[in-house]
């Protein structure tokens, strides 16, 4: 009995399946193609993100993980060093990012100009810092800025100035960090802006010229509006990058002197890998993520296309 039944069904299934298969394949195939990427994303992004949240609710005491709820987060609010790190990061964000983006815009316009010979060489030159290894450039800068043997002080010495404590004075250390960051990322942002600049139709400039606009007017009324989406992109990317900044202060100053260049990233690292306080470090990571989210939304509100 059962044998015939299964037999009939077995015959029936391919008949029905044959008609359905192409559609089913169409639906399954895309997922199969993205599956490896999804699996990797889940394993190396999604899982750590989730796990980090769980860890942020725990504290390791005597080798055992203990659930402490929001303790790590309330501790964060009362931690003067976290606020110092936040303040330092905010200062870099408020001072260095606008300076860098203004420079990058100027650079993009200059690199776009047909008056410039060997433009490719300049473009390469300004982009090159971006591909330099972070540690390598950190070390080069710490040598350049060395108070006693650095090139920077040798040059200022020629001008008759006293040696500047670039990395060892709380204020100058912040300035040095800003200089290093600007050197590193300006070219990168300039290239993004340049790409956008080349999509601005030449007719607009012609029209502006016909209307009697000078160089400044056509920059203000044609170039800048044209750059708007790229400016938004570079602002958001720079903001996120700056909030996460780690390599430069880690290599150049170690967060010092006296925490003058301590950033959230460095503080997170110290807590996790110097103090083995993984719970607290995870809480810092989440606080940072929330902060980045909020700033991202604000920037999109203010700089995004007005429809």
């Amino acid at each position, binding site marked *: 009995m059962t044998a015939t039944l299964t037999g009939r069904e077995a015959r029936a299934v391919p008949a029905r399946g044959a008609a359905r298969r192409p559609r089913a394949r169409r639906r399954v195939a895309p997922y199969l193609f993205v599956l490896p990427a999804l699996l990797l994303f889940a394993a190396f992004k999604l899982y750590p993100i989730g796990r980090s949240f769980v860890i942020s609710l725990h504290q*390791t005491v*005597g*080798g055992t993980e203990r659930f402490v709820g929001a303790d790590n987060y309330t501790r964060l609010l*009362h*931690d*003067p*060093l976290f606020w110092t790190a936040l303040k330092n990061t905010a200062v870099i964000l408020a001072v260095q990012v606008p300076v860098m983006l203004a420079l990058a815009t100027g650079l993009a316009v200059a690199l776009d100009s047909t008056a410039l010979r060997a433009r490719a060489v300049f473009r390469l030159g300004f982009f090159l810092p971006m591909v330099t290894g972070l540690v390598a450039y950190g070390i080069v800068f*710490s040598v350049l800025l*060395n*108070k006693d*043997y650095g090139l920077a002080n040798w040059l200022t010495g020629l001008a008759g100035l006293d040696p500047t*404590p670039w*990395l*060892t*004075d*709380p204020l100058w*250390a912040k300035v040095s960090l800003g200089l290093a960051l600007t050197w590193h990322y300006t070219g990168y942002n300039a290239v993004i802006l340049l790409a956008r600049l080349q999509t601005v139709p030449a007719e607009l400039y012609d029209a502006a010229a016909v209307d009697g606009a000078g160089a400044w007017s056509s920059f203000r009324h044609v170039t800048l509006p044209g750059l708007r989406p790229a400016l938004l992109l570079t602002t958001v990317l720079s903001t996120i990058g700056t909030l996460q900044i780690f390599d430069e202060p880690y290599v150049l*100053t*170690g967060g*010092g*002197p*006296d*925490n003058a260049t301590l950033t959230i990233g460095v503080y997170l690292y*110290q807590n996790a*890998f*110097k*103090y*083995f306080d*993984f719970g607290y470090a995870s809480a810092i990571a989440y606080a940072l993520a929330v902060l980045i989210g909020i700033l991202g939304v604000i920037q999109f509100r203010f700089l995004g296309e007005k429809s």
Partner: protein
Amino acid sequence: MLRTVGAIAAGAGSLGGLTACSGTGAEGAGGQGGAAGDKEKGRITVWSWQGPAAEMKALVPEFNKKYPGIEVTVEDIGNPAIWDKITTGLAAGGQGLADVLHIGVAYLPGYVEKFPGGLADLGPLGANAYRDEFAQGMWQTVSPDGKRVNALPWEANSAGFYYRADLFEKAGVDAGALQTWEETIEAGKEIKGKTGAHLLGIDKPASQADAANFFQMLLQLQGAFYFDLAGNITLDSPEAVKAMTLIKTMNDAGLVSDLAGGWNALMSSLKQGTAAVLPMPTWFGGIIEEQVPQEAGRWKVRLPPAVRRGGSTAATVNSTHLAVAGSSKHQAAAWSFVEFVLTRPASQVKIYRGKGIAPALLKAYEDAVFHEPSAFFGGQKKGEVFLEALKAPSSAFNYTADYARALKLVTDAQSKVLLSGADPAKVLKEAADQLGRQTGRKVSR
């Protein structure tokens, strides 16, 4: 005697190797069996840094004469990179860790407390046989509860006072007669006036984690530390305030050169002769000889002056140890290597000859090398100077798992004092309070 025991153990081990190919027989000294592996066979990796790594590498051929079945790879991870690497490995449950780990005293309690089981208990492998072989206080450091043995001591570094005898002479100061650091500061003023050299150097902005070495030495000379033996915070004790005040006095008098940049700055200062004194532990003598060989005869060494008149001039300021990873599949073989390197006077003597690394193993000091006059240090018996400190009664120091946090707060406080003239008592009190909030430990006042 020890050698006979070793030979018997080795014999038993090789028998075990013949009969039990599965590699689970841990015969010999330990006899615990389990997952420890074979004492005679296996492939082990050793993590260390620069000098010690080179010295261990040099010992491998000799080791292989005794243990031909163990293949040893010594890796120079570099210091301080090794600490991050070990932390990451321990946090990953031992994945990717080497079998033998070289660990400094500052890190050992943290690793043990935060990663239970991360380091193997060397007791069952046979470590307890060596309990009384090491310098005073060393066993307490590696086996705080007297049962579990987390590591075996290697170096025991005593506080030292290396000085440029020629500069002292030019200034007309008798370095040997200095009894306290206050007298040394006065001497420093003479030296600065007559030769232009600073008394000593400190990494003022604390560009490296070890910027507070000198402060810590002044503290330990008084038998004090960041924590007391019960683990309470003593960061702003009268001893600590005294130590920081001495540093401030020196700095205010213009006697402290800035070693911002850490090790490299220290080396160039050494080569340029910027400072008359290097208040560094035992192992630094080897570095001076290596860096400025042409200055032979100009250098001398003594134990540091006391902080208070009549106080101690001896302190074990740091030590390093070899541990076996808890995750190692060849714990017994790893132990064989640790035992060979650290408990055999011949190994330690060879290492001392190579790099001037001072052993904690007291028997090693019976060798003539520790009692020879040193041509570099003006014919002084440098080995004996430090042996005297090692034998002197010195306090045990409780590094606790929160040492790294304490050190960070101390170096910040020191930077405030050195860079902006802050008040020692005030910054240390703030640091102590902050440490209390961070760790939940009690501040003892």
